[in-house]
């Protein structure tokens, strides 16, 4: 991989959970993303994937660990000042375009707001840039005069993407950008994100719970469980030869549009509470292959092949 534009090292996030208690939402997460590449971050609810994305771009502070963006360390002492210098090169696309667009703001102003905040764009340039951005995301120029509620969910997500592109970012965290969309809209938005990546050399952290969507978007994929990455590999390796029992189980239970397929029986149990984290491997209590030491000793994420890491004693 070429030099990463984004790297996370040992990221930890603790949230206070009552007196003298903390909830560790993210534990020791590390990864790199190169320019123009996508890391897919997949996991179930509470796996820590969104918290990781938010820490990465400074939306919430990390408890410990290090984040570097475009060569600047943005965590630790003086991190905020360095984050400010790279802020324009980062963006975030949210799951719910309804919650992230102001209903009283015309599309023109929603898209141009980042330009206005930056404050060095002339009026004529602003209109031209809005038209250009609408065109990039496949919306008619006339959309500029309309309000968010006049658009469908898929179109609103296009508006959210246009807004994210306004300052010509190089890296975008996409947090479940297609999860709220119907299948026919989802495919359009996935293709749009891929087209924009090709055109502008964008790097993405693509957060999603849908393994098939993640496969279509990503070059590399990290699987999170209970706050930690349990497996990370190229998409070819991860989908063709998953090593961690959790990744294998996830792939086994995804419903597929094939009535003749016999799905494997569901994995028993549920994700453990982050407040009562079990000792050892967090997945051991649900793992069909768990041994005694899995319940005692926490497995480290280690290399099992070139570019393929898994956190499991048994692989």
């Amino acid at each position, binding site marked *: 991989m070429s030099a990463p534009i984004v790297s996370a090292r040992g990221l930890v996030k603790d949230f206070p959970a009552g007196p003298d208690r903390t909830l560790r939402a993210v534990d020791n997460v590390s990864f790199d993303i190169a320019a123009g590449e996508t890391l897919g971050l997949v996991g*179930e609810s509470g796996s820590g994937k969104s918290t990781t994305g938010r820490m990465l771009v400074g939306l919430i502070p990390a408890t410990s660990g290090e984040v570097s963006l475009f060569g600047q360390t943005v965590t630790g002492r003086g991190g905020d000042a360095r984050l400010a210098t790279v802020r324009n090169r980062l963006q975030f696309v949210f799951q719910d375009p309804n919650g992230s667009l102001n209903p009283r703001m015309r599309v023109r102003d929603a898209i141009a707001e980042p330009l206005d905040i930056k404050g060095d764009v002339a009026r004529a340039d602003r209109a031209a840039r809005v038209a250009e951005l609408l065109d990039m995301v496949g919306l008619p120029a006339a959309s500029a005069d309309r309000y968010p509620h006049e658009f469908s969910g898929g*179109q609103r997500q296009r508006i959210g993407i246009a807004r994210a592109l306004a300052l010509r970012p190089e890296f975008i965290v996409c947090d479940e950008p297609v999860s709220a969309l119907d*299948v*026919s809209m989802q495919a359009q938005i996935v293709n749009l994100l*891929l087209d924009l990546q090709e055109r502008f050399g964008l790097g993405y952290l693509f957060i999603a719970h849908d393994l098939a969507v993640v496969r279509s978007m990503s070059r590399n994929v990290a699987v999170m469980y209970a706050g930690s990455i349990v497996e990370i590999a190229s998409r*070819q390796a991860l989908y063709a030869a998953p090593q961690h029992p959790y990744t294998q189980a*996830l*792939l086994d*239970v*995804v419903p597929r549009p094939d009535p003749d397929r016999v799905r494997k029986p569901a994995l028993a149990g549920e994700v453990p509470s982050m407040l009562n984290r079990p000792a050892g491997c967090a997945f051991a209590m649900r793992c069909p292959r768990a041994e005694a030491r899995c319940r005692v000793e926490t497995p480290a994420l280690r290399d099992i092949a070139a570019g393929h890491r898994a956190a499991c004693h048994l692989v």
Partner: protein
Amino acid sequence: MSAPLLSVRDLTVQFRTDAGWLTAVEQVGFELGAQETLGIVGESGSGKSVTALSILGLHAASTTRIPTGAIAYAGQDLLKLPDRAMRRIRGGEIAMIFQDPMSSLNPVLTVADQISETLMLHQGLDRKTARNRAIGLLDMVRIADAAHRVDAYPHQLSGGMRQRVMIAIAIACRPKLLIADEPTTALDVTIQAQILDLLRELQTELGMSVILISHDLGVIAEFARRVLVMYAGRVVEAAPSRALFRQPMHPYTSGLLAAIPPLNHDVTRLSTIPGSIPDPGRRIPGCRFSPRCTEAQTECREQAPDLVSVGDDHFARCPPRLHRMRPV
């Protein structure tokens, strides 16, 4: 098929809006036999949930009208049934579970209270007997430590556990028909698999018919024996599951299947259906799908096509495809 358990014919449902009466479901029809499983699949606004709510008479009478249709269940038309009789059927013979168990459960009542309510109402049990039955029902939906969990409040349970409680309430009176509206959509994929396995086991144990409503063709393929595909309020295709997934006959069904991202191989781009899902208020002349259809001809935009037979128990609403299959 012998006399079906449920037969819906020519059902049209309209809602009152500021802009007049809006047609949410138009001429929907299907039959469901005892112990059969029907899947209804469609995207937002397709009318799949509205169809299900109509079976149970759950639309607000003041803002809803049903200009045409009949819903025959056990020899009676549910649309003509007085409220009292409908209340006996609802929750007794026909039960329903919804997408979000948190908003369907009462947050200030324990699990025992909520399951008991159904039993006391429909079967006249006293509180103590109902409570014991509630524990038995939690066992049936595979909740471990049922005698203890029965006193929990909804917020003390995980999403998957809450959906199990909803299922326990739904099966409390041993319904003949269970309508499951997106029962796993809010759940994680490993929990979704557990709930689908549970529903399948309970269906066999109790001999229920099931209508499963989902936007997820994967869930439908796994669960349903027969499938209706709905688009903009109409059934565009109806077929046995295998035929539908192997030889889809409506361009919308084909487009939807192609748009699902593959899990087993890489693609550079996904296949898409152009355009957007139509706004429910918009009146589309001819075939509702024609503005997005790559195969549409002039006739498609002018005349609304009928649902016609295209194979063994297989129906589709697409004249161009039918002509191609059977040249005139």
